[in-house]
């Protein structure tokens, strides 16, 4: 049985400038026990999808099944199987991280002993033990976010929805959270996470989907997404070249005060030579998931613009 199956899922909102199609005929399948990442720009439809799948929002059309249960028709049964970290949620200001985890588990029906032992485990894993008895109101934003993620991951729910779980965390904290998410997946939870951090998706996910303008552009492994980009080498030029000059070699993005070019292996020598002639520093490396994402979404935006002009 699959963890999540969405078919022809659509959601239309009434916005200030008319109807907004947040999701448009989305089909998606997430295998049980899979760690799945959802990528997309702001407003691409990630959170809308996640809210519908977690029974927080009604779809306009289509269906979602979680472990075979219809989310629209049987929300109560679905809610028993899930836990969610909402985007930009915040903990209770007066409770400590330990109280958040233990009280939430007890509200969900765990015994005092189970709540305590799971709290011990997750607080240690998330690096919160030193802060476990400090009320959230005096914790930093990153620690508050970790508290929220800890209370949800400690549930060991069958399906975990994590909407930008590491938002506002430092790189060390993010890695600690990744470990706990991986641990939850190893224990059997199916995880759907949305993120803007491409490295996070690359590190964590076994499978991912890219969404843009309510359409799923890609679903598959991160490696397969990278291979979809025809070029395999990335070169970053600190300056010395114009976009027009570089665009004949491949895809160009403005980045860090210069340009990043995605190109094929056989053009590298020529470009390196030209850079040396102009005394321009360049960095060479393999194409990353971020570039693959930018290329894929960039193409979709260009196509959409071309359609709009036509």
């Amino acid at each position, binding site marked *: 049985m699959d963890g999540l199956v969405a078919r022809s899922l659509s959601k239309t909102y009434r916005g200030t400038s008319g109807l907004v199609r947040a999701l448009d005929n989305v089909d998606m399948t997430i295998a049980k026990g899979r760690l799945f990442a959802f990528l997309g720009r702001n407003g691409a439809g990630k959170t809308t999808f996640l809210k519908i799948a977690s029974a927080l929002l009604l779809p306009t059309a289509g269906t979602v099944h979680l472990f075979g249960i219809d989310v629209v028709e049987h929300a109560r049964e679905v809610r028993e199987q899930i836990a969610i970290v909402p985007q930009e*949620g915040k903990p209770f200001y007066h409770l400590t991280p330990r109280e958040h985890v233990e009280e939430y588990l007890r509200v969900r029906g765990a015994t005092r002993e189970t709540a305590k032992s799971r709290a011990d485990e997750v607080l240690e894993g998330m690096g919160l033990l030193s802060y476990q008895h400090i009320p959230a109101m005096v914790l930093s934003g990153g620690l508050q976010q970790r508290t*929220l993620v800890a209370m949800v991951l400690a549930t060991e729910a069958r399906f975990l929805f994590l909407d930008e779980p590491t938002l506002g965390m430092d790189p060390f904290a993010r890695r600690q959270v990744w470990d706990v998410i991986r641990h939850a997946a190893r224990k059997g939870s199916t995880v759907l996470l949305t993120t803007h951090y491409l490295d996070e998706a690359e590190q964590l996910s076994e499978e991912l989907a890219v969404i843009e303008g309510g359409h799923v552009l890609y679903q598959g492994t991160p490696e397969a997404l990278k291979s979809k980009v025809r070029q395999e080498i990335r070169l970053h030029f600190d300056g010395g070249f114009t976009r027009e000059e570089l665009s004949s070699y491949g895809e160009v993005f403005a980045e860090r005060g210069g340009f990043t070019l995605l190109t094929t292996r056989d053009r590298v020598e020529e470009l390196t030579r030209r850079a040396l002639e102009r005394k321009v520093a360049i960095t060479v490396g393999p194409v990353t998931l971020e570039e693959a994402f930018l290329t894929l979404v960039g193409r979709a935006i260009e196509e959409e613009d071309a359609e709009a002009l036509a």
Partner: protein
Amino acid sequence: MTWRTQANAIFRICYFYGFLALRRQPVFFVAIFLTPLSFLFFLYVVAPHSVLPYGVVGGVMFTALFTGNGMMTDCAYLRLERQLQQIFITSPLRPMSWILGMALGELAWTIPAIALFIVVLALVVPIGVLSVLGLVGVILLTWLLSTSLGFLLSTFFRQLREIWPIGMVVFTSLSVLPPIFYPIAAIPASYRWVAFLSPSTFASQLADHAGGLTVPTISVAPALSSIPVEVAGMVLLTVLFALMAMRLARWREP
């Protein structure tokens, strides 16, 4: 989850949202106590002393009604700003248990202030155990009515900034304008029925009965002065608000 685990969950929410919050920030107690105490002081200074017992009972009822204001602001705040309601309802917890837990938490915040006002009442007028029990019954009914209304109103908010002005308008209209701090006899006889347009008037009249205070007959509708009718009115309004809240609560956005 069984009904037993739901009951336990309700108790846990009441514990961490009510008792723990009050223990960690006792200033809330002062904040809750201060407004009715100020009204009482004002009455003591400017009104004849015969009105004072009504003011003390008013303090009890004001505090009980305050649970509705707390319920409205807290539920809207936890849903819109903290998104904690979303975390709690996407779980085996029933939405009704979330509401009840929060409502009990609000009651926990007000218990010290209510107890203090009852002690003051006992000092002002001679009241027996039966009166206190009657008063406790009215307080519980008022709490149910007020928190049901508070939760119902919280479901309408779409932005945080709407909460405070609307809350101020609604709960000032419910707890200051109607005869809560003053006897209904102060309203001209032919207009007394108008006060019953506010659900809190039922509560305050019952509380005056329980406190052994004189409650005049409403000449236009004498039934409004009878205890069974007042109890029935409160129960009916409570059920109505609770049903509407359950129906309108946006557990799932449309």
